């Protein structure tokens, strides 16, 4: 088994799928010869040719519209949006077009499209590169939203996403691309979409989170155990649309308390949806309100105060302490 970073695991997964299924096509801005600005597609054009892995003109709506047309023709497109802050340019083609293709055509056409995109803060990108815009797609029926937190998960989830016959938005947190290595099997394996992963067991509070906040939450939970002797259970959602409420409910039945940690701004996103679903499914097991840890509802402050704006281990600890005192 090889030690891989998340970006290596992603490249490896793309390589496997290109080899396995000739209908898989990779395209986007700079993904060909250059191998992507993060090198996620490094070497793949050379290996599979310019018909399978190719650069596009610089236009996000065009990229996703192209994917839509190619899907109609029976391909499995894996387009890349170079940075997720640029997704607004493609919003119509995702939410109004690709996500509705199966419904509008009564099932004649469907869109097995996996839209990959880097996102996530803490890496000092320019404006509109790091923004966590995943919540926008929770209210877009017909797309799934997947956010891996480890190299192992990234590979297994990406293989599932590409093989899924419906559109998947696959978001790759830039800070996780090269922050650590993990053992990743060389062979194929898939991780089902829509299934959460309990990454730390605990009996006192449930932390529901995803993406880069999984690591932050795990560290906070470890620190909490040291400081207070209390055990937080950490759930990595892996997929935020749909949300695996069964796993969350089962955990809350055990702990009676929960907090939700997200990197996106507070209002109306994944966190709000999780709290609503907990309310509907597990309220009688709760001993305290569900708290949210998130940045405030502001634009993303690229540059200077990123680290203060993003949720920290201390913020998670404070919420843990608060939720057990209520």
């Amino acid at each position: 088994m090889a030690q891989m970073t998340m970006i290596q695991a992603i490249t490896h997964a793309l390589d496997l799928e290109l080899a396995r299924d000739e209908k898989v096509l990779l395209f986007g801005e700079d993904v060909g010869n250059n191998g992507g600005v993060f090198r996620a597609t490094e070497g793949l054009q050379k290996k599979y040719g310019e018909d399978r892995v190719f650069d596009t003109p610089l236009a996000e709506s065009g990229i996703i519209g192209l994917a839509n047309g190619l899907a109609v023709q029976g391909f499995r497109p894996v387009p890349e949006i170079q940075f997720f802050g640029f997704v607004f340019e493609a919003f119509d083609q995702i939410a109004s077009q690709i996500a509705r293709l199966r419904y509008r055509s009564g099932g004649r056409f469907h869109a097995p499209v996996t839209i990959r995109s880097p996102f996530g803060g803490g890496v000092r990108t320019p404006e509109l590169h790091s923004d966590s815009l995943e919540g926008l797609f929770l209210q877009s029926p017909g797309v799934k939203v997947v956010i891996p937190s480890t190299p192992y998960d990234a590979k297994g989830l990406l293989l599932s996403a590409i093989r899924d016959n419906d559109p998947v938005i696959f978001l790759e947190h830039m800070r996780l691309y090269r922050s650590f290595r993990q053992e990743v099997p060389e062979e194929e394996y898939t991780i089902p979409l829509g299934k959460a992963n309990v990454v730390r067991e605990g009996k006192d509070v449930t932390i529901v989170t995803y993406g880069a906040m999984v690591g932050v939450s795990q560290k906070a939970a470890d620190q909490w155990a040291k400081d207070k002797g209390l055990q937080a259970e950490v759930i990595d959602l892996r997929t935020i649309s749909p949300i695996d409420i069964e796993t969350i409910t089962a955990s809350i039945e055990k702990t009676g308390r929960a907090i939700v940690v997200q990197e996106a701004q507070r209002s109306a996103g994944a966190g709000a949806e999780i709290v609503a679903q907990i309310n509907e499914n597990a309220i009688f097991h709760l001993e305290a309100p569900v708290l949210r840890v998130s940045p405030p509802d502001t634009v993303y402050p690229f540059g200077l105060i990123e680290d203060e704006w993003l949720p920290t281990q201390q913020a998670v600890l404070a919420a843990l302490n608060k939720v057990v005192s209520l």
Partner: protein
Amino acid sequence: MGKTVSEHTVPYVQVLDENGKVTDKELLPNLTDDQLREMMKRMVFTRILDQRAIKLTRQGRLGFYAPVAGQEASMIGSEFATDKEDFVVPGYRDLPQCVYHGYPLYKLFLYSRGHQEGGRVPEDVNVMMPQIIIGAQIVQTAGIALGYKLKGEKHIAITYTGDGGTSQGDFYEGMNFAGAYKAPAVFFVQNNQYAISVPREKQTAAETLAQKAIAAGIPGVQVDGMDILGVYAAVKQAVDRARAGEGPTLIEAVTFRYGPHTMSGDDPTRYRTKETEATWEKRDPLVRFRTYLTEKGLWSDDEEQQVIEAAKDTINEALKQADNAEKMKVEDLIDAMFEEPTTALKRQRAEITGEGAN
């Protein structure tokens, strides 16, 4: 001023003038008498369909409908230049092209009513359901055309939008992508003079819409959109180019819609005059082609009357079929979101049907 680095022209195509006389013998398409008569039949059918659809909409028997009278030559002539295997990617007004590309008429009535069955295109028909978002189909067509190229199939994709659609970013993105990939696409703009109420001259400072092709590096052609032979000739040439691997073409058909933008409350008297309408009606595509065919001994009033009666029967049959379609249910909508409904959707389905989840 420095030196000129690039110069471009936009050719204009017309085969029949307003009096049905051939203006350019060189461009006269090589069509059999039967094909010529078939074109006329289709235009007559389209005019009757339009009149009927307008009435049905007023009676509440159809939902969304965008009238097509005036645009028959553009619609019928362009589709006539394609083969069955080619893909037609329509805008919301382009129902006649769908019909003649194999889309069952009753399904278009269902589409108008918002019934899901209206979008379920038969497996052997290469038509997308009509697009609502202006210009969105242009980038998709680049993808469909590229798909043919990657599969090594010599088919093409033709897509339609209006004059307003050429202002959208997707319009340029689609042409540019198709141009960059030499994808076998034909972008057909029906410049019917008004984007709802905004006249063509307020839509863009460009002298022609066809010249918008130049920025994408592909040929742009303007054609008399009231002249079915001109439209056919221009599109056939673009289709042949695309099939030969020479890439996409933009065609601007200069035409006019006689009716309102849609049957949802638009009133054309607010933004255009009777004189303007009369000017365009003199160029009527049916009158022009009828004159041409009659002079060739290929058409008669009797024949036209027969086509009209047959059209009425066909439309009635299709309406009956649409009326008999099974009622659509909210559960059908839920089931159509994904290949396998998510757990949340299964629960929501159960809430609606009153059945237990799973």
